[in-house]
């Protein structure tokens, strides 16, 4: 087991290293750099000035050299400076992190609360109209762009209640109620999609388990439905569900990019788009790295959770 964890950590490290190279090279392939953007807004280009600025930012050197410099700094915990804000990258990223984290947690919580019970219900009533309705409901969740859903919700609120949701961010430490109220809609808009995925995987895992002999035994013993479904069946069906939840948590960030844009929330996901468009290399590089670390860690945790949930699975002995 220790050897397995060690191996997995090495693989995770290699993955992150490769990812950082990929992003690094891609961002520098992008047409135009920060100096183009600065000089474009100034209206004239003095080549000497421009070269001086490029040299100052270190983007005049070959890409490989730039990458090694970045990697060295990153390992030492120095994330570099944002080109546009004249601030250390971390200072720019840090205040935006809690917003995205709160949204992701709320959205995931909502999607689990909605997805698991509907999945179980759909599986136990297979072929019943309830099953059809729930399946269509979940497929609809997979089909609607979350940003559009957000727009429609805002539109409906304004039209029917004449109420315009606040578009300025309220910190939870200022006013927790207002903050939660503000996060409710975006969390629902993003969480709906994840809940659909969770519902589908719960349904198929449950159907698999409900066919087993020991479930028939449990029924034969005269146990109540809730006992059979939740204690006997769901417990064994939860493995793929947990895998998906772990992966979804990391992948919610994709949905957050557009949702934070629609609801005007100052999170990191939306900021990534701004940074990409502004060619703010240190921000893009470090944010992408941060997201990748979350994804890789989530995958690792899910793998390790397996052995805890299902003692039959043993790593490193196959």
């Amino acid at each position, binding site marked *: 087991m220790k050897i397995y964890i060690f191996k997995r950590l090495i*693989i995770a490290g*290699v*993955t*992150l290293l*490769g*990812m950082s190279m*990929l*992003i690094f090279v*891609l*961002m520098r*392939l*992008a*047409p135009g750099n920060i100096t183009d953007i600065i000089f474009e807004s100034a209206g004239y280009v003095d080549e000497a000035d421009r070269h001086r600025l490029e040299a100052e930012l270190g983007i005049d050197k070959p890409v490989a050299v730039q990458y090694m410099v970045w990697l060295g700094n990153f390992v030492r915990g120095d994330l570099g400076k944002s080109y546009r804000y004249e601030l250390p990258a971390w200072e720019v990223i840090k205040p935006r992190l809690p917003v995205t984290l709160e949204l992701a947690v709320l959205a995931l919580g909502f999607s689990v609360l909605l997805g698991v019970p509907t999945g179980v219900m759909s599986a136990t009533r*297979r072929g019943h109209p309830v099953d*059809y309705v729930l*399946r*269509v409901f979940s*497929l*609809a969740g*997979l*089909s*609607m*762009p979350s*940003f*559009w859903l957000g*727009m*429609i919700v*805002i*539109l409906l609120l*304004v*039209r029917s209640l004449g109420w315009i949701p606040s578009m300025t961010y309220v910190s939870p430490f200022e006013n927790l109620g207002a903050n939660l109220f503000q996060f409710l809609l975006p969390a629902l808009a993003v969480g709906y999609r994840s809940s659909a995925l969770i519902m*589908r*995987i719960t*349904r*198929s895992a449950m*159907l*698999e388990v409900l066919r087993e002999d020991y479930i028939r035994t449990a029924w034969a013993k005269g146990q109540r439905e809730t006992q059979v479904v939740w204690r006997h069946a769901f417990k064994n069906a939860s493995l793929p569900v947990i895998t998906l939840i772990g992966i979804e948590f*990391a*992948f*919610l*960030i*994709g*949905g957050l*990019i*557009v949702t934070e*844009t*629609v609801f005007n929330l100052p999170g990191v996901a939306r900021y*990534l*788009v701004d940074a*990409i*468009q502004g060619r703010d290399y240190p921000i*893009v590089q470090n944010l*992408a790295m941060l*997201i*990748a670390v979350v*994804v*890789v860690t989530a995958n690792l945790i899910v793998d390790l959770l397996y052995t805890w949930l299902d003692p039959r699975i043993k790593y490193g002995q196959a």
Partner: protein
Amino acid sequence: MAINAIEVAVPERHLQERTWRSALWLFVRQNPLGALGGVLMVLLVVAAIFADVLSTHNPVRTSAHVLVPPGSEFWLGTDNLGRDLWSRVVHGSRISLLVGIASTLVGAGVGGLIGLVSGYLGGKVDLIAQRLMDIMQALPILVLALVMAAALGPSLVNTIIAISVVIVPRAARLIRSSVLAIREFVYIESARAIGVSHQRVAFRHILPNTIGPFIVLVTAQLGGAILGEAALSYLGLGVPEPYPSWGRMLSIAAAEYAQKAPWLVIFPGLAISLAVFGTNLLGDALRDKLDPRLRGSS
């Protein structure tokens, strides 16, 4: 004899006609949701092919009729530049379908090839290919597509590339796992034993047998690809003007005119949702048909 032949021929033709119809009817009855998905997909394809016939106005020409509500002249209303929304939505189906199909085929093709080679050869090639796929999957889909799209610059072809890159690792993983299973069959060993080259074994004996999961993958990714294009275009990094892209329509329209002209928000989004809903329904039905192990399971 001649009389007999005629007597037999008539009910036979009748029978054939009935079986074809009843097979379709059976599919509709057994799988009403799949049939609905099929209808939606046919509508999408028809809209894309006959966009010029179906549209009532030029989708890119601006006019003085700004923000007109839906009515008899402009069926779905007009946008802030006086362009007819119905014509734009109809033409938008071309972009969605083109980007969706092209990026799915490119991504699944490249990924499938990587999966085939890495699964068949195994060893170091497999190890390196798998680590590469790990790297590509270390970022959420939209984040990777965003960086790709930004690096390449906004254009139709680059949007297709950015989205197909995201599909590559999924296709590679899937095809690899089926190749690993097929590789162990006796007929592969016999093919090798009679001196068939590796190349021929891989492409003639293994590849055709991965077609089932491949089709399932393609339909499953198609909806995702359409959504990806919408999101990228919404963020301004996808298909640029003047192409009428559904996602792009939402980005310009939504922010400013949503309250004054809600139709600008409703219809393009509805089009995206219905198109993706159709591919998802059809994908589910196809998976049930082609992958009997999963039948009815999700």
